[in-house]
């Protein structure tokens, strides 16, 4: 019995961890390219999930709505980079932070204003009686982990094996040298923001069936994702993924055995503080070696 609860919590942790991992990945992508943490990432994901909800309400089949939402969110991220973030590229750090927080509030109120603030149910694409469910894990939990793995695999393939992925990494690392090679750095940033927006949308659609849909649903999730990104090293995608899963598991186990569900969120905050104090570069923080 004890053992069963433990395994169940572990599995549940892996499932939410997958969501944190995706969102952490989105944060890291933008951080690598711009050295800013997009505090609005969670609210953007929430807004995307509302779009998916509206599309489903309008009668679209789940996966069509899912695909459309990913595409729309990609566009939303790209437009945001172009219209809001790019004009700020010479602004001081603090004003960029303020703009991100402003964006967060804009998305928050916009969602409430357009879609209403009462909590809504959001469907899971993985039926309750699906063959891949079991006593330890619900089909939605299994499905979430699977979706997270797919995102990771797709992104890895894209960045590692395609020329476009390579030029995006180059533009993030050394914009000046990239321009001299004819790489359109601005376009790469737009693409990066678009991808981050799309990933966030998937995370939102995966978490909504669990936490229900309302404008505040991503606030906690973003904090966990941020903790995951920090643990892994804010500039390391692999670290962010591992960090995200780790935070999911820790959150569940500590919530179950130590502090209780009410205090779970503070676990993330404590983790963030500990990492920042003990190992600011994160567990896998990358060191770019340079000989001088």
């Amino acid at each position: 019995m004890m053992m069963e609860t433990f395994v169940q919590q572990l599995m549940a942790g892996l499932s939410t961890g997958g969501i944190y991992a995706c969102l952490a990945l989105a944060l890291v992508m933008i951080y690598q390219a711009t050295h800013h943490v997009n505090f609005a990432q969670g609210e953007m994901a929430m807004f995307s999930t509302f779009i998916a909800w509206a599309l489903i309400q309008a009668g679209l089949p789940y996966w069509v709505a899912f695909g459309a939402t990913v595409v729309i969110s990609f566009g939303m991220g790209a437009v945001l980079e172009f219209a809001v973030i790019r004009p700020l590229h010479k602004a001081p750090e603090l004003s960029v932070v303020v703009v991100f927080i402003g964006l967060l509030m804009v998305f928050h109120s916009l969602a409430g204003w357009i879609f209403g603030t009462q909590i809504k149910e959001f469907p899971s694409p993985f039926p309750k009686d699906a063959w891949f469910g079991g006593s330890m894990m619900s089909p939605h939990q299994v499905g979430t982990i699977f979706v997270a793995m797919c995102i990771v695999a797709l992104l890895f393939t894209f960045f590692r094996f395609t020329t476009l992925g390579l030029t995006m990494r180059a533009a993030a690392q050394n914009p000046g040298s990239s321009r001299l090679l004819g790489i359109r750095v601005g376009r790469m940033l737009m693409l990066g923001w678009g991808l981050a927006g799309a990933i966030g949308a998937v995370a939102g659609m995966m978490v909504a069936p669990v936490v229900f849909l309302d404008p505040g649903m991503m606030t906690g999730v973003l904090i966990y994702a941020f903790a995951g990104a920090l643990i892994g090293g804010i500039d390391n995608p692999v670290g962010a993924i591992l960090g995200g899963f780790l935070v999911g598991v820790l959150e569940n186990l500590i919530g179950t055995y130590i502090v209780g569900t009410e205090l779970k969120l503070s676990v993330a905050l404590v983790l963030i503080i500990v990492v920042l104090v003990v190992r600011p570069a994160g567990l896998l923080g990358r060191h770019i070696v340079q000989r001088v």
Partner: protein
Amino acid sequence: MTRLLEVQGLKAWYGSTEVLHGIDLNVEEGQVTALLGANGAGKTTTLRSICKHLVRIGGSVTFRGERIDNYSTEQIAMAGVGHVPDGRGTFLGLSAEENLRLGAHARRDRSAVLEDLERMYSYFPRLKERRAQQAGTLSGGEQQMLAIARALMGRPSLLLLDEPSFGLAPLVVRDIFDIMRRVRSEERVSILIVEQNARAALELADTAYLLETGRIVKHGTSADMRNDDAVRRAYLGE
């Protein structure tokens, strides 16, 4: 001889400081042109100006008969100007081979790209040995080779070389200039090379310009420049 690059009345500013005061300079197709001058003369700035990189310019730059001074840096690169920048521009976190592949990012002729990659490795065997290594861990000389090869991977018709000898041991400098001689005879590329090492540059170049505080003060064939008393005293240390 056809004119590949024609620079007329080129001025350049960092902020409100004018550092080039109207430069005229030509690069003929198939030739190597050297731009010599002391520290701070404006050599790097001249190359940057051609690419509109990090600097504001006035005057005209014509490349293959087309005005490019109103192009963006990216467009100038795509038009066929390869720039090996001051500081080498290494993508430190990428592997050496990824650095090279970046040079060819816009090319669609995949098999030709692979052939070019192998040819770069034949010019610079050291890079082949280090192809999987993170570029930031390469030595200065290797990074210089990487920068040259990366630019060549884009098949430019004009290569701008900013002090390839900078900070390198004499033996490595000789290596690089030997390879540049091979490159000039085997690749269809014209070169504009900036150097403080006037001796090495004049050996490679057909013609040369001498830059002093933002103005061209002399130009002529490499032989003329080598025999010029002022050049010999100031830049060849004779």
